[in-house]
């Protein structure tokens, strides 16, 4: 049972803090006593169980452009009030706001061991990056849902304070990717066969290990004239200049690299190698053209089979790389290629 009022500090961005829109996104962290903006409806939902003692407001632009500094300022402003719990957001589908809420959660939960509640749309990048550090309630995309989300936040706050076990099933949070061992009364094989039988009989069953959902990308219309097209080559096979200058990770890559092909007709083991940790690198290292076929493309260029080969290639390691990261790389690479007047790209894997 709740012994005393839960002391809560609330983190919000410049918009919800009433400071202003995008023009005020550089607003530096400031503190207000009591609740502000959406804190009003959260406080109403909390009733006597808790009190928002302070609100920290920071512009999304300032936070994301100075993430380490912002994290540390906001965390110390929050910690000063010795809260039992921190609420960050809700951020709905606002990407930078979601990242800020997640980063605040990371700093507060790690340094001060204070639980953090947030609420976001599942596609908010803050979810993927920081879901381990906060209890993130699932919301829709629009902030117009505030009235609906506030009571859920209040309920979760009480449950956390009362030390209830918080799970996605019981409290509507987004799975945090935390596994807990326990003894099931039936062994795995028996449970699996039960599930299979249910599936074969078109009966409902519940998987114990949901698979990630991948999106489907509709293909673009075909390139009308490859002979006149400027073509770029990209790979998720990890081909990088020798020494891997950008230190692209051998698995779960957090970045991609852009490297020049100017003046090159062939990739050799003297100057290129693979950074990929998910396949036997011997053959790719011996002849990197096996993954990034520059030699063949230069021949095709010479023979007029393609218009022109772009003088840069892009590479990352597609080994356990998160779909969200991959989508972000693709967006940024595609923008780059479009600016460079590229009509088509060849993407090779391993």
């Amino acid at each position, binding site marked *: 049972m709740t012994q005393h009022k839960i002391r809560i500090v609330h983190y919000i961005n410049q*918009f*919800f803090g*009433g400071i*202003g*829109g995008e023009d005020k996104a550089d607003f530096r962290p400031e503190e207000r006593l009591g609740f502000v*903006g*959406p*804190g*009003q*409806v959260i406080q109403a939902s909390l009733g006597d169980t808790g009190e928002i003692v302070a609100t920290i407001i920071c512009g999304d632009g300032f936070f994301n452009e100075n993430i380490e500094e912002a994290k540390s300022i906001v965390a110390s402003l929050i910690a000063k009030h010795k809260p039992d719990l921190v609420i960050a957001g809700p951020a709905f589908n606002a990407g930078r706001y979601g990242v800020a809420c997640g980063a605040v959660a990371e700093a507060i939960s790690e340094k001060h061991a204070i639980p953090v509640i947030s609420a976001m749309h599942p596609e908010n990048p803050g979810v993927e990056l920081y879901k381990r550090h906060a209890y993130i309630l699932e919301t829709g995309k*629009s*902030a*117009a*849902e*505030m*009235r609906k989300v506030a009571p859920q936040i209040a309920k979760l706050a009480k449950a956390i304070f009362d030390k209830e076990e918080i799970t996605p099933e019981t409290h509507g949070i987004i799975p945090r990717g935390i596994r807990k061992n326990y003894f099931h009364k039936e062994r795995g094989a028996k449970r699996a066969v039960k599930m299979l039988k249910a599936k074969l009989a078109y009966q409902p069953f519940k998987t114990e290990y949901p698979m990630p959902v991948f999106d489907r990308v509709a293909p673009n219309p075909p390139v009308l004239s490859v002979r006149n097209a400027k073509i770029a080559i990209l790979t998720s096979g990890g081909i990088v200049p020798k020494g891997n200058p950008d230190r692209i990770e051998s698995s779960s890559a957090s970045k991609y690299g852009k490297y020049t092909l100017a003046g090159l007709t062939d990739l050799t083991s003297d100057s290129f190698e693979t950074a990929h940790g998910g396949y036997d690198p011997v053959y790719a290292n011996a002849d990197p053209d096996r993954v990034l076929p520059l030699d063949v493309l230069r021949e095709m260029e010479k023979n007029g089979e393609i218009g022109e080969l772009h003088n840069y290639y892009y590479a990352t390691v597609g080994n356990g790389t998160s779909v969200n990261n991959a989508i972000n790389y693709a967006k940024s690479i595609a923008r780059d290629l479009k600016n460079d007047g590229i009509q088509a790209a060849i993407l090779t894997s391993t």
Partner: protein
Amino acid sequence: MDLENQRRVKELAEKTGAQNLIVVLGGAEAEASGLAAETVTAGDPAYAGSLAGVQLGLRVYHIFELKEYVDAQVYDDQVGLMEMVLDIDAIIAEVSNMRSMYSKY
């Protein structure tokens, strides 16, 4: 509704009296128009602006609902084209729904 417009509406309501004010919306889309209507009647649903938790209950209409009160030539010049391309029924349904639920006047 952006923070600035919320502030203006609130100030006007305080100055003229909520019962003397009519808000006319020009939103091009049903959901956005509905949210704006909600903001000036029941309060800002996002709890961000100065109308957060403030139930002004104003009379609110979309310009498409006021066609018969506007000079035909002016209406035609200003919104005639948009009237042809937008989903008027959906917009009016959203706005009038908010009005009937929350408008006090």
